[in-house]
């Protein structure tokens, strides 16, 4: 056992926004961890969970300041150390695992260099034994080629591997406390399960005390002993994991639990099947130079076949790199297919934007994942919504104003937001504006590309609810792209599973998701963490399980 106990008392952290007054963003936080225990900090973005976690390292980000309280690790009072002592603590007794491994590794230095850097700086061991220990950790974390993977650079390994290498980087000095900051949020579910397992194994073996920051209750259920629920920098509830899952005392905890699985209370509306709206036969899309047969250098999608009827919703699921987004981009005309064509309303669509009519543009609208990037930050909401109205319809000023207000009602936003800029809206409000802008064109088909992925669970669940309602009221059809099976289940009639650019399974949603035929579909469904303790141990899936084994 190397973990040490951690006691946090009355922690308070202040932030000074640019040109603003200092105010406190984390208030009166306290908890106690016995050696080897894992505490989960859970809450939406902006709830202060990362800020609290970083305070365990005696660190506050630019513009923030630890204003008071105490963080005691073993016998050390962390907040009272001077700069040099703090530096000796970090990466030695307290280690940090960041959310995005891709960003947290220096792109210009080899992985081994970075993994052992902490051990060398703190003089824990010499270079040779540090390297041996790193290889040992790589092996324990089930990384491929443990002897040689350290010679690579960050861009040469996958995201899941990088995340595990970061765990090795954290554990190389045998720290007493490890801070894990959303370490699997950026990963596919199929990868997440391996990483979680590896984390859990090495931490349990070493008896490391840990803080696990996450917004995903199901993941927390696998990893944590205790949970601290946060909102706006304030503690909402604190307790053992079993108690939080089974008898949540606080209202906010209950809403988090409900949002974690939207399909429990949300289901696609009963709509009558209409005429064929979108049909794709044997589509192939690729990038790069085409050879003599018109075959592209890198095929992203192949043999894609689908049909969406008027008012229906088709969910497309698969992990990152499976070609989901490319499919939406092809339908939108942003990427030209190398074979096959898109039929819309029984008419063949031009492969590129150039050949499409204004009417076709109007009837197919796209909603992007990140409303931050999709909305012009310099335009007001009114102007953003007016744009499609001016482009597609010739309305007079008053009608247009009414229509803009109608759209706001439709996405359940107050009219007072009309004159704000996107920067002044919350994440969920921005996504609603993003959606309203697509609805302004009165489309027949909306292409939704991971529209809830960047949002907090509670906010994302509300957007999903809105999408279901819009389907019911407006009869609009969706091509709904997601990596999250539960969102597809709560919104879509049909589902299509993509794996490495090919459709491995498709059919009615409840059919495919309850009785999956293909091994990959089973794995994808089986890898979604369940909201109960002990799921990780009983789950049989891992990356090692052959996913592509054909099932004829």
């Amino acid at each position: 056992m190397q973990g040490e106990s951690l006691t946090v008392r009355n922690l308070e952290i202040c932030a000074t926004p640019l040109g603003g007054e200092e105010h406190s963003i984390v208030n009166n936080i306290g908890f106690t961890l016995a050696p080897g225990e894992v505490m989960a900090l859970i809450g939406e973005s902006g709830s202060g969970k990362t800020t609290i976690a970083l305070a365990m390292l005696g660190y506050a980000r630019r513009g923030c300041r630890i204003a008071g309280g105490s963080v005691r690790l073993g016998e050390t009072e962390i907040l009272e150390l001077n700069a040099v002592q703090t530096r000796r603590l970090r990466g030695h007794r307290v280690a940090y695992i960041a959310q995005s491994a891709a960003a947290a590794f220096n792109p210009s230095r080899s992985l081994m260099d970075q993994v052992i850097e902490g051990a060398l700086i703190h003089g824990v061991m010499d270079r040779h034994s540090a390297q041996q220990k790193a290889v040992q950790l790589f092996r324990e974390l089930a990384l491929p080629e443990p002897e040689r993977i350290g010679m690579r650079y960050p861009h040469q390994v996958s995201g899941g591997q990088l995340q595990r290498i970061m765990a090795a980087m954290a554990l190389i000095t045998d720290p007493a406390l490890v801070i894990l900051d959303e370490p699997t949020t950026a990963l596919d579910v199929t990868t997440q399960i391996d990483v979680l397992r590896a984390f859990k194994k090495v931490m349990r073996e070493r008896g490391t005390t840990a803080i696990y920051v996450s917004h995903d209750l199901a993941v927390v259920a696998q990893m944590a002993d205790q949970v601290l629920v946060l909102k706006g920098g304030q503690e909402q509830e604190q307790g053992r994991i079993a108690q939080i899952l089974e008898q949540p005392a606080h209202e906010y905890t209950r809403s988090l639990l409900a949002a974690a699985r939207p399909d429990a209370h949300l289901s696609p509306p009963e709509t009558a099947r209409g005429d064929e709206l979108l049909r794709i036969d044997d589509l192939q899309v690729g990038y790069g130079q085409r050879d003599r047969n018109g075959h592209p250098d890198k095929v992203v999608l192949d043999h894609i076949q689908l049909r969406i009827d008027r008012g229906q919703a088709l969910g497309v699921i698969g992990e990152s790199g499976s070609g989901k987004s490319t499919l939406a981009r092809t339908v939108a005309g942003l990427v030209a297919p190398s074979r096959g064509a898109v039929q819309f309303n029984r008419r063949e669509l031009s492969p590129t934007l150039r050949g499409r009519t204004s009417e076709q543009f109007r009837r197919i609208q796209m909603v992007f994942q990140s409303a931050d990037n999709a909305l012009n930050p310099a335009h007001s909401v009114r102007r953003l919504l007016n744009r499609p109205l001016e482009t597609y319809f010739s309305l007079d000023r008053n009608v247009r104003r009414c229509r803009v207000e109608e759209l706001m009602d439709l996405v359940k936003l107050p009219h007072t937001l009309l004159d704000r800029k996107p920067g002044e809206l919350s994440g969920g409000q921005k996504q609603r504006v993003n959606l309203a802008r697509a609805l302004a064109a009165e489309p027949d088909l909306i292409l939704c590309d991971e529209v809830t992925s960047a949002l907090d669970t509670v906010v994302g669940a509300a957007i999903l609810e809105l999408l279901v309602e819009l389907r019911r009221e407006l009869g609009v059809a969706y091509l709904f792209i997601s990596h999250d099976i539960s969102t597809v289940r709560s919104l879509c009639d049909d589902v299509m599973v993509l794996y490495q650019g090919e459709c491995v399974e498709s059919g009615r949603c409840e059919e495919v998701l309850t009785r999956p035929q293909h091994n990959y579909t089973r794995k994808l469904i089986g890898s979604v963490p369940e909201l109960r303790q002990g799921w990780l141990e009983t789950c049989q899936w891992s990356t090692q399980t052959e996913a592509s084994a054909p099932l004829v």
Partner: protein
Amino acid sequence: MRNAIPVLVLGRLSSSLVTLFLVSLVIFAITSMLPGDTAQLILGQFATPDQVAALRTELGLDQPALLRYWHWLSGFMTGNLGMSASNGVSVTQLMSDRLPNSLLLAAITTAISVPLALIMGITAAMRRGGAVDRVLNLVTLSMVAVPEFLVATLAVLLFAVKLDWLPALSYVSTVESFGDFMKIYAMPVLTLCCVLIAQMARMTRAALIDQLDSAYVEMARLKGVPPMRRVLRHALPNAVGPIANAVALSLSYLLGGVIIVETIFNYPGIASLMVDAVSNRDLALVQACAMLFCSAYLVLVMMADLCAILSNPRLRNR
């Protein structure tokens, strides 16, 4: 695949040739359009039309412009840069007299300004928002804002006129000892450094701050990496690309752009040669100088790109 670098160099060299060709066309067109006539200028106001016509024939100026261009181009290809029209010396001779002076001035300035600028930029980035940063910011900003002729004139006023430490003019031919050398180069180099350091230091600061804000530097900090090592080992290698480009752009100024410094200190460099050539309508010389400046620029930019690639494993190993 490790052949990215030869491929890049070859590609750059070939596109450089095209650029040089286009530049020569443009220069030729501009010099042809300039008012005035070379022969007239050489012979002066009182020449008879017959004399002018004779000289024009001798210089080949009566031929059509395209033909003249062709003659020049074919000569250039074979290494014959032609004769200077205004003083009958070969262009190669004129340039080889001046070029070493320019290169020497450029080399000294580079050797002083680049390290200084890097140190200033790095220090400012490390102490961002602090007193040191603000002072450096003020200094570099005022260096950018003050025109170099003012810096040069003030330097002459102070060091040559008031204090009488340094000679006002740089007669390179009088150098006999290291002390002379220092005295002669001190003011031109000082003036040039003022201009260059400011630009390079500001770019270095910006490029470095960009990296210091990144997640991996925060990660390094949370690993307990000391500040100096964070900057030099973690952030700087990733900022080499933009810094190298800023340095290359600044240094390219050292051949052609130093005309003011050359004029004020009467320094016999290549920039003043070109300016004289333009006022004399000395086509061959103008072309040759333009070609030289252009190639120097292209070489510098290519070197900067090479630095950027070599410092980035993602590009290096592609």
